[in-house]
């Protein structure tokens, strides 16, 4: 089988790349081992949230101008800041076509709230997490009610309230907590303690219970202007249900991403796959690329687990297989390796230097900065030093940036995926 481009990895980076290529008429296939890390993400897209050791970046593009000059190996530097901007807004437009509005705060970062009640700076969020009305209500110091479904284990509003109160931004804001009962939908078999976010989402993907829920929210929220709840608005009809519920309650309904699986992240995943398919892209799920044939500085074909000995051919390949979590990088006792092609990896030789002493160090863990070494065109080197000219590495697989410390994972995935697509398209012209 032959494609113009085969993308290994069906996450944020791989799908952004695939959408761009497919839109320009390239025949693309994405091969993905299972569902992507979007299922474990907040559903907001970070660009650059923290500089140095925990200092918040408020205007990320302004910050990047200077940052890029002093960090030439950083993936953003390899893209260039204007291209990063182009990629992010392209991404937003594509999601818009799939009916997901991503809001940004006039080029500035905004915060999204975590289940623990901490704040994370981010660049794009879904409407139920950030929009003009939320900003306005927050500026007016309106009262917030943090509500949970009775028995739901992945969110503890009392804990979130304690943490929020510690934050200077919430010092003069009144926050209460409260509980909502699941609607009685005639299935007594299951204990509500067993519900995960997806179970709640499924209950509310039907409209039947919205009125009952609205009444409960009104009572539990008292005189608050916000009802902050664990993300529950479903994956299919969330936009309509969000609007309906706001109308019925007269409150701003605010969704807090819970992990895992993340409802907010799954919406993005759904939208990207749907867009890719609409453009004629082929998404091969549940298969794993085992290796490929590299000759004369080019990757000719790849072999997959299901395909056995019959190879898949393409003019260009993108490796967007993620970091350690997604299996794009593997750590053995003494070294870090890239398992598909055995590409050259940047890491520390000494294992004790892979991680910091604390679990949540402000400086971040060094292993998060490991990855496949590439040139400025994101082409990697094989273990014996041969450059692979038609293979592009993107996303969490890349080294020299720290997604956790910087708050930059989403932006790097999107902009490097987009950049790889542009390089491939330019090469074909």
């Amino acid at each position, binding site marked *: 089988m032959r494609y113009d481009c085969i993308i290994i990895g069906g996450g944020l980076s791989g799908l952004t790349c695939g959408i761009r290529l497919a839109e320009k008429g390239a025949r693309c296939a994405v091969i993905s081992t299972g*569902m992507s890390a979007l299922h474990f993400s907040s559903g907001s897209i970070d660009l650059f949230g923290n500089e140095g050791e925990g200092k918040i970046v408020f205007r990320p593009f302004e910050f990047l101008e200077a940052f890029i000059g002093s960090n030439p190996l950083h993936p953003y530097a390899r893209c260039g800041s204007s291209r990063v901007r182009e990629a992010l807004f392209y991404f937003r437009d594509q999601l818009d076509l799939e009916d997901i509005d991503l809001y940004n705060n006039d080029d500035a970062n905004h915060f999204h709230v975590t289940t623990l009640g901490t704040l994370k700076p981010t660049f794009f969020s879904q409407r139920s997490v950030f929009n003009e009305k939320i900003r306005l209500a927050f500026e007016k110091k309106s009262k917030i009610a943090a509500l949970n479904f009775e028995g739901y284990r992945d969110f503890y509003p009392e804990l979130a309230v304690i943490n929020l109160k510690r934050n200077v931004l919430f010092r003069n804001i009144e926050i209460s907590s409260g509980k909502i009962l699941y609607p009685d939908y005639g299935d007594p078999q299951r204990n509500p303690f067993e519900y995960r976010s997806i179970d709640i989402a499924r209950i509310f993907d039907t409209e039947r219970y919205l009125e009952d829920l609205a009444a409960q929210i009104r009572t539990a929220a008292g005189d608050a202007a916000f009802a902050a709840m664990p993300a529950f608005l479903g994956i299919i009809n969330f936009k309509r249900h969000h609007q309906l519920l706001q109308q019925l309650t007269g409150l701003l309904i605010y969704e807090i991403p819970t992990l*895992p699986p993340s409802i907010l992240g799954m919406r993005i995943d759904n939208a990207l796959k749907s867009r890719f398919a609409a453009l004629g892209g082929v998404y091969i799920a549940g298969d794993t690329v085992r290796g490929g044939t590299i000759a004369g500085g080019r990757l000719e074909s790849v072999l997959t687990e*299901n395909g056995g000995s019959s190879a898949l051919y393409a003019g260009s390949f993108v490796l967007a297989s993620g970091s350690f979590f997604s299996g794009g990088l593997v750590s053995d006792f003494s070294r870090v390796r890239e398992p598909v092609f055995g590409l050259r990896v940047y890491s520390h030789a000494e294992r004790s230097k892979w991680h910091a002493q604390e679990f949540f160090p402000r400086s971040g863990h060094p292993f998060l900065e490991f990855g496949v070494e590439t040139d400025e065109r994101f082409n990697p080197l094989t273990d014996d030093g041969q450059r692979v000219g038609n293979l592009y590495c993107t996303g969490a697989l890349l080294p020299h940036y720290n997604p956790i410390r910087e708050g930059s994972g989403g932006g790097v995935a999107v902009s490097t995926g987009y950049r790889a697509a542009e390089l491939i398209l330019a090469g074909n012209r």
Partner: protein
Amino acid sequence: MIKLENISFDHCIKCTVCTIYCPVARATHHFPGPKQSGPDMERLRIKSPGLLDDSLKYCTNCKRCEIACPSNVKIADIIQSSKWRYFKKTFRMRDFFLARTDLMGGVATRASFLVNFFIKLFPVKFFLDRFMKIPSERRFPRYAQGTFRAWYKKHRKEQEEFAEKAVYFHGCYVNYNNHDLGKDVITVLNAMNVGVIVTDEKCCGVPLIANGYIDKARKNALFNIESLAKSATESGARIVSASSSCSFALKHEYPNLLELDNSAIFDGLDYITRFIHERFEKGNVPAMKPVPIRAAYHSPCHLERMGGVMNTIEVLKKIPGLDLTILHSECCGIAGTYGFKKEYYKVAQKVGDELFKRIERAKPEIVITDCETCKWQIEMSTPYRVEHPVTVLARAIDGKKL
């Protein structure tokens, strides 16, 4: 003693992604989902089989959990094998008959008119429902008179004259119920200058596995591996199957679930549309007449698991005049013999509900799918006729009415 090679459940990171994509967990809260029934409970079951939880019987073995798993855990395999490793073996007449598709077919095809007539009668349905626990709502596939193999014997000569040949694993459905599909396979492959060889075969084992007859499934598997490998080596041919679940069993259930070495046939075996698509790509496209019909394509779970859906779609796209809608991938619910059991019937229909609605919305004239049991389920639950992609292709080739 825990076998070290059997600890794929230990790679589970408890992310719950499999449960999100489980069609059964979505349809009923009685099933706690693949994560809990599979890797979670497996730890307990290994400790003490007394901790076995009945609810895992709700699993249909559709494999959508394995497609979703980011950590490569063979979740459905863990659940399936638990069914026969831990449950006490009790003989159930119904399960015995449902599992022996070849035995039943062998008898029924001798007097198919009588069987097809009687099985529709109310007293028979009542009896099956009441005493065999086969729901009276369930429609049975019709049996054919005689077998496909008997028909093929008469045409073997002409097939052997082709220079290139393919060994065709026809499966029980073609042999006992739908000879036409087998003939369509021959029409299509012949039009591409490929002769069709049929060799000795037994039921692939899918219904045996589903009903816990593992020893019998292994026996059949060993027979099939040997027979297909021998025939393929003799004629230098590839092996094809036009049933997505048979192909899946031959290729993946044999090594993963039955723990048998199928390397002798693994690389040579294709689901039919992959075989056809590869030849199409090389320019071996037969002359086709337009098939002006609006069709909705449903991708069966096991073809999804094999990664073969794109081949079927690409092949269908080559048929002139075919107005094709690709349905969002959903399980139809029948899962082989699962939907024939009274205790699961409602769940099966609820699983399929989303697919049936999507078919309605697509407003097709026919539905196309690769799997015979999906066909039975969709024909029973929607007003549409269901055809195999190879049948549609055969009509484009021979110009007869679809």
